[in-house]
């Protein structure tokens, strides 16, 4: 039970949701954060070096 109380204190779910409302855009903070994380992951996947890339080139 202690863990549940702790988590509930961190993320209060017993409230109205929070929304971003900007002109036509209407999105909950939760969904907005997930979308941002997906964009960050996408950009990171393009920019971060892939391990073993150089090793493979040397072997060719």
């Amino acid at each position: 039970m202690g863990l549940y109380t702790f988590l509930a204190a961190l993320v209060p779910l017993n409230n109205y949701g929070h929304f971003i409302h900007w002109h036509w855009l209407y999105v909950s903070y939760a969904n907005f954060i997930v979308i941002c994380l997906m964009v960050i992951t996408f950009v990171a996947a393009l920019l971060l070096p892939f391990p073993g890339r150089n090793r493979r080139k040397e072997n060719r």
Partner: protein
Amino acid sequence: MSTTEIERQWTTRLRHRAAGKLPPEKLLPDTQPSYVSSWIYVFGVATLSSLILVIVTGCLLALRGPSWWHGSFIGHFVNSLHLWSVEVFFFAMVVHLWGKFFMGAWRGGRTATWMTGVVTFLASLLTAFTGYVSQSNFDSQWISTQAKDGINATGGGAYFNVLNMGQMLMWHIVLLPLAAIVLTALHVILVRVKGVVPPYDDDATAVTTPEGATK
């Protein structure tokens, strides 16, 4: 039986066609073109891995039933694993589809690969939806009572009744996962048949040649 008769059997013809299109070295290749060594190519397999986790945890839930997943600690844990694998699945799938979109990965005769992806995405959305309305809590009550108005407005409510718990659960654990699994298998087989699409400036025709595999 004569040799020509054997050649004309459907088993023989099917085997020749399958082996020609997808020989073992193409199904499970040793090497990939150098442009595949990028993190963006990991997301297809990440989607596949999380789908496998979703299915395994879903089967565990089916084995033990609702009183187990609502009432016991371990059942609750497996239920949570099932939910969070779904979240990872969709997250990875969206990054995967963005990647394929900006690569134009439908080039070089890969239309079917892209389209099976699109249909798998839609089937997964429906699977997740029927899962959310099967939770039997206030969340599912809210989702289903909202959704029924939308679906009734289309006339589809007579066939697909989101307030019918039995029907939704059956769609969620039988029909839709079956569709998602079959479509995913097709999708991955098509990727193996066609080979990985070369980058835009690498090859105007985008057809992967056997030499492409060692480039």
